[in-house]
């Protein structure tokens, strides 16, 4: 049972980033961190691997324009066995479809039985990569999972829906996308952090995966949107609720 988890390294959302005025690429701070929403996929993978026993392995898969491996090490520290890093300067500014071509080719090459992803990344949030990867691999997709089980060689999920949830089952190999409510991700232990330093990280280029980056889109303009003006902010002195009541009266809600 080979589980591959797609993880993305992103600029730390805590530090502000900008768009390059020339080519409109995201200008990333040096240090890249693990996209927080990917910790859920890693946790699901580790739990499923435990259920499958000795035969199971968890490999991280990440595409990056090169440089930092900090985010990968964070996910390795949670307990994954190793990582595949597709590093290629030619993948800078890659769109979702190019990203998916890279991830699908690398997951196939690794003979993945199950590919796990988040539902969308924090910085790009196109939200179609899991489905594109599944299509390119020719496998079923189990998406928006808020609960994951393994039943008789199949994966069964609770799929979040507008009305509530559906119980959906699919056979392997498959792609699984998980929400941030699916499990409580573990924090890396000191031992895990030390072990992560020596775990194998295989690096590949787009050419080795026979993927030619394409974009199919070009940015025409970037402009700032007039911001909504902040109003009055007042400290609650025990009468704050009366201010709200007055506002509700002013706008004729009460």
């Amino acid at each position, binding site marked *: 049972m080979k589980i591959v988890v797609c993880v993305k390294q992103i600029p730390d959302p805590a530090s502000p980033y900008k768009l390059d005025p020339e080519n409109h690429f995201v200008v990333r701070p040096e240090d890249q961190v693990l996209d927080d929403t990917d910790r859920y996929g890693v946790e699901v993978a580790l739990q499923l691997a435990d259920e499958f026993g000795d035969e199971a392995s968890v490999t991280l898969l990440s595409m990056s324009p090169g440089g930092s491996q900090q985010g990968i090490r964070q996910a390795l520290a949670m307990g994954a066995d190793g990582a595949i890093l597709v590093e290629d300067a030619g993948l800078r500014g890659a769109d979702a479809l190019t990203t998916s071509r890279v991830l699908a080719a690398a997951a196939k090459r690794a003979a993945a039985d199950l590919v796990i992803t988040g539902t969308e990344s924090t910085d790009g949030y196109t939200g179609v990569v899991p489905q594109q990867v599944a299509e390119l691999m020719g496998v079923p997709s189990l998406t928006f999972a808020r609960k994951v089980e393994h039943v008789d060689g199949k994966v069964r999920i609770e799929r979040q829906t*507008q009305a509530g949830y559906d119980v959906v089952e699919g056979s392997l190999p498959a792609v699984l996308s998980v929400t941030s409510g699916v499990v409580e991700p573990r924090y890396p232990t000191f031992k895990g952090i030390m072990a992560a330093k020596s775990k194998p990280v295989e690096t590949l280029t787009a050419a080795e995966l026979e993927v030619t980056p394409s974009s199919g889109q070009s940015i025409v303009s970037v402009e700032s949107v007039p911001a909504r003006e902040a109003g009055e902010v007042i400290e609650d002195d025990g009468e704050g609720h009366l201010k709200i009541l007055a*506002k*509700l009266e002013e706008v004729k809600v009460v």
Partner: protein
Amino acid sequence: MKTWVFSTEADGGASSSALEALTKARSFGGDLVAIHVGAGSEPALNELGAHGAATVLHLSADVSAAAIAAAMAAACETEQPDLIIFGMGNLDRDVAGRLSARLGKPVLANAVDVTVDGDSVRVANEILGGTTKVVTQFTEGAPAITITRPKAFPAEPNGGDAPTVSTLHVPDVGHAGDVVVLSSHAESAEGPDLEAAAVVVSGGRGLGGAEKFEMIAELAGLVGGAVGATRAVVDAGWVPYSYQVGQTGKTVKPSVYLACGISGAMQHLVGMKDSTTIIAINKDPEAPIFGVADLGIVGDVHNVVPALIEALKAHGS
């Protein structure tokens, strides 16, 4: 110009995203086709017609996303659409992604506007919490595939006739279609419809626990509002996903949005920043929600909300 709009059946009607997209697409002129997945009830089909779809290509609900994408890709070859518009629903995203991979065309997601100028299709996105607008043009040739945000366009019927309906042939996609829905479960919200309500009272992690949503519901009841929530509390299991407001939840534009114990993350703001009046209660004076609030109360929700409930009760009696 030939535009396709993806629609799913919900509560006996067509999806609101489809009706919004059809309304917008009427301004492009040319052919307007709806791809409708679900029971295909007469009200749903007529609604699509009334919003401008002359033709509906229908698929039943028990078809996998892979098969829907394959069926649409095959129809693309004969029909040659220039533009295909999806909404943000889960099935919309499943099919858009697969169709894009199958056709080798990019998807531009989170669109707040779509414009057509001759052969060129452009979409506008608001990024960085709605502070920056980016316009992107498709360069790969037809069809341009886009996923639009809820309420990016108003849905307005134009009195169109009942559409011509034909059933789309579903090819066998083998293993890729090997998914089955074993059961469906409702976790319905009580009270007014969140997306249509004139007042929304939302709660976040600052409430401290699921049981505190009772006080949010009571407050909402007193002002005739619906209850909303952040993704943090949906993920924590306090309230169902149908309550979620934001980038990956609902977009609301009520007259009044009252945010209780919500920090105001970018992904939450995009779902509510166009509310007419925003009121926020948060104990942290630095909380970003105050940056968009017309009235901000720096205080503890456990004091301010119960006091407001009492004041409203006294006001009403």
